[in-house]
């Protein structure tokens, strides 16, 4: 008997009718947030030439904000009981101490398509190894910053709920060019180790590591391989849930937290924003400077050959694609060869995680997409975002003379 209908899968349609699967979109959003983070870190490097000073600053803020998520100091003491035991199904047979931080760390990694495994999970020692990391382009400051976030995880999981019992080291890092990322937590009392400062978290552990051979490394996280992530105690997160979590929280930890420290590195607000926009505009121009990059995008989105190279809808469709990938709802207002107008609720665009709006995303993307317009379409074209102070804002791709182009 013939099939009466085709199978179905979750996907979205580009402006040109090409279907983008949930898996592709999820892969893209992780890398996109990492790209924004990489641009932001260039801003940081311009304002603070000392690697040590800037790294310490972002470590401090990321740790503080991670702890703040767990509430007041009193709430923090009970955070693992109140939240983790239920949300992560950590059974009561587990001794509440720092090692449980390995569970939250592993979950966060896998939700963000950082593919790897927990090598060891014992009360005295936890070893986590990654084979991939979408954020591996950003640089070692971010690797260090994540150790400060782990520190918060381990603090919250500790027996007193406020200060962990371990020495925590990212002894290898993809962002430093290593084959693996590797975080090892070893109990200080068992291993005779001292409490660490922020910049001391990339030391070698006491016990030997287990190095997974290349033939058994994995290229994708569990959500992509298996459609779900399952942690050691059986709690499952579907690809859909992980994707939605990333679309909110990915921005918070890797962009918003460091942004708070980086703003303070600039001499003033205007200077921060001037440099910020320049960096993102340059990134946008470089996105499509090679002819094959333009060709690749056309193919990816399914832009028909009948659409001329100098048609602003190519950029318009790229922006639509990026909004879909980032799960930002929008409405099309104009879609002609002369202009693209995309209406977006301002809060949807800035507050990916409702509790933590990120207004700088408007500046970042306006500068980046405007830069991209010059190379993806032509210098006749610009991208502007109007109405950012209003409830709705408009992302416009228009022909515009720009005598002071960034």
């Amino acid at each position: 008997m013939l099939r009466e209908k085709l199978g179905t899968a979750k996907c979205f349609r580009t402006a040109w009718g090409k279907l983008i699967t949930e898996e592709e979109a999820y892969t893209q959003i992780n890398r996109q947030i990492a790209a924004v983070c990489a641009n932001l870190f260039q801003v940081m490097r311009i304002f603070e030439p000392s690697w040590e000073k800037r790294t310490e600053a972002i470590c401090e803020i990321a740790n503080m904000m991670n702890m703040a998520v767990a509430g007041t100091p009193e709430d923090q003491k009970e955070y693992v009981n109140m939240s983790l035991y239920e949300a992560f199904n950590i059974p009561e047979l587990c001794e509440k101490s720092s090692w449980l931080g390995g569970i939250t760390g592993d979950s966060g990694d896998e939700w963000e398509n950082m593919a790897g495994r927990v090598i060891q999970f014992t009360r005295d020692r936890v070893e986590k190894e990654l084979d991939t990391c979408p954020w591996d382009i950003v640089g070692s400051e971010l690797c260090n910053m994540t150790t400060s976030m782990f520190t918060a995880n381990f603090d919250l999981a500790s027996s007193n709920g406020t200060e962990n019992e371990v020495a925590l080291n990212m002894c290898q890092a993809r962002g430093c060019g290593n084959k693996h990322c590797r975080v090892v937590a070893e109990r200080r009392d068992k291993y005779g180790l001292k409490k660490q400062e922020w910049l001391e978290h990339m030391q070698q552990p006491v016990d030997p590591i287990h190095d997974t051979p290349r033939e058994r490394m994995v290229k994708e996280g569990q959500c992509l391989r298996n459609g779900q992530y399952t942690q050691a105690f059986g709690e499952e997160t579907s690809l859909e849930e992980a994707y939605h979590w990333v679309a909110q929280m990915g921005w918070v930890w890797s962009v918003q937290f460091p942004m708070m420290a980086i703003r303070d590195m600039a001499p003033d607000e205007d200077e921060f924003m001037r440099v910020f926009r320049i960096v993102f505009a340059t990134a946008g121009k470089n996105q499509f400077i090679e002819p094959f990059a333009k060709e690749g995008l056309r193919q990816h989105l399914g832009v028909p050959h009948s659409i001329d190279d100098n048609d602003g809808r190519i950029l318009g469709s790229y922006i639509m694609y990026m909004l879909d990938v980032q799960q930002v709802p929008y409405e099309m207002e104009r879609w002609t060869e002369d202009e693209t107008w995309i209406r977006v609720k301002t809060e949807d665009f800035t507050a990916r995680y409702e509790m933590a709006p990120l207004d700088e995303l408007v500046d970042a993307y306006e500068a980046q997409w405007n830069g991209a317009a010059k190379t993806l379409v032509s210098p006749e074209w610009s991208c502007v975002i109007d109405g950012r102070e209003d409830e709705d804002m408009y992302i416009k791709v228009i022909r515009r003379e720009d005598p002071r182009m960034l």
Partner: protein
Amino acid sequence: MLFRNDERARLDSETIRKSVGWYRWTHDLVEIKGKDASCVLDMIYVSNMLKVAPGRTKYTCMLDEQGEIIDDVIVMHMDEDTYWVSTLYGPRLIPWIESHCQGKDIAMKLITYDWDMYAVQGPDSDKAMDELLDRPIGKMKRFAVAENSIGNIPVYIHRSGFTGENGYEVYCDSKATGQIKEKIAVAVEKAGGREIYTLEVYVRSIPMEKGFALKQDFKHLSPFECGMGWAVDTSKDFIGKEAALARKENPRFRMTGLVFDWESTEDISIWERVYLYGVEVGRCSQAIYGYTVDRNIGFATLRANVPDGAKVTVGPNGSPATVTSKVFC
């Protein structure tokens, strides 16, 4: 993840298999009281709970309306109208029962934080219990629960375990847990045993060798597809019965064991895909190293027509494995 050369994990495993080991093993515990408690539990679980006498316990499972296992538990009949259910999903069990007990005279309470539990497991566990308890354990039957005391501290002793060895579970008031823990450590040491440190050994490696599964291993399976048909009483009613019986006639899957060829399984996570001749035929619910069998082993949910002995590959790198019985030793 466990590896062949992990000497501490190997020692933990050998202690349980050859001597006696102890570890804290507190599960979620739900107390169910009331004159309708037995009837409600009888409707929730596939086994005949009305036959479980006071002082006896029963390993069983509950199904959803599709006939698929949603939790496996031990129900303990503590006294006439009081049951304890030992589960890893207490906060989810209560709403499930609540939604199926309208008009019934029962009261439920999560008592996890009131009772700590320690496992004493291994062939020498009788010796350890004789050292430990104020009154001799005598000829306590498997799946029996009884009051006793340790240094005059009241405890419940449950003869059961998750190791495939002779063993006991000691339930104590959580306020007394420190004293009980110390006394268990001393008694087990006197019996020639020690504390077991490696969670993955006592939660996964040791049970898996004997075919003991966790709830997540039963995903999408009816009891008849995972070797738990023995627990089902088809003469009574229970949630999911009709669908489960249909699955008995036409099973979609079966739960199997896997023995891996390679020396380690770093690329095998929970619920990894399994392929036969390159075609996906199921999922590997987990792989782990078994120190008694000295192999990497796993559980899998495969299409019902994949036979034992089939050579399959698992995961993204094609890790080769052989389909076997889910009881490895």
